[in-house]
C-alpha cells in the first residue's frame, strides 16, 4: 500500500546546473500533477499528465522546466540551468482519474536548494 514517493527528498545544487526530480505515483493512478511551493507560500501548479500526455503545460515557469512521464507511471521533472529563484519544495500528486472529481494524493516533496 505504497503512497506517492518522490526522490531525492533533498537536493542542493549550484546555480547553472541541471537537476532531475522523480515522482512515483500510486499504482494505477492515471493522472499525475507537479506543483511548486516556495517558503511559506501556496501551491503553484506546474504541469498535469493524463497517462503519458500532458494536456496542460501552461504552468511551467520557463523553458528551463520540462517534464515527462513514461509507461503511465514514473514522472521526471527536469530543471535546466538552475537559478536561485528555483529553490522551493516540488510536490507531486497522483489521482485515480483524469477528471477533477478525484482527490489527489501528494508525495512528501523534494526540497531543492540552489546555491
Amino acid at each position, binding site marked *: 500500500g505504497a503512497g506517492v514517493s518522490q526522490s531525492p527528498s533533498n537536493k542542493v545544487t549550484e546555480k547553472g546546473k541541471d537537476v532531475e526530480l522523480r515522482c512515483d505515483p500510486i499504482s494505477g493512478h492515471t493522472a499525475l500533477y507537479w506543483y511548486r511551493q516556495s517558503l511559506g507560500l501556496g*501551491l503553484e501548479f506546474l504541469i498535469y499528465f493524463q497517462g503519458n500526455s500532458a494536456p*496542460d503545460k501552461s*504552468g511551467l515557469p520557463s523553458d528551463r522546466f520540462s517534464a515527462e512521464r513514461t509507461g503511465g507511471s514514473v514522472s521526471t521533472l527536469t530543471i535546466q540551468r538552475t537559478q536561485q529563484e528555483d529553490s522551493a519544495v516540488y510536490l507531486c500528486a497522483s489521482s485515480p482519474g*483524469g477528471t477533477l*472529481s478525484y*482527490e489527489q494524493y501528494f*508525495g512528501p516533496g523534494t526540497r531543492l536548494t540552489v546555491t
Partner: protein
Amino acid sequence: QQPVQSPQAVILREGEDAVINCSSSKALYSVHWYRQKHGEAPVFLMILLKGGEQKGHEKISASFNEKKQQSSLYLTASQLSYSGTYFCGTDPSGNDMRFGAGTRLTVKP
C-alpha cells in the same frame, strides 16, 4: 486563474468555529479542499462538485455556490489537530488545478 481565499490567517480557541472562504473569477467544475501541516504534504479533506455532490472523509463540512463561484469550509468545534494551512483548489478548465494562497489556522488550548 488562482482562487482567492479569505481570511489569510485565523486564530481560534479549542471548541470555537471558523469559516474559510474561496472564490474564483471563473466558472468551476469542482472545488477541492486540502490541509497541510507544517513540514508535511497536503492532505485531502473534501471535493465539492457541480450539482451538489460532495466527497470527503473528515468531520468538516463545506458549501459550493456554483452561481457565485464560491466555496466555504466550515470548521466547527475546532480541535488542536485542526491547526494547519487550508488550501482550496479549483479547476476552471476541468483538466488542471489552481490552488489559493492558503489560510493559516491556529487552534490554541
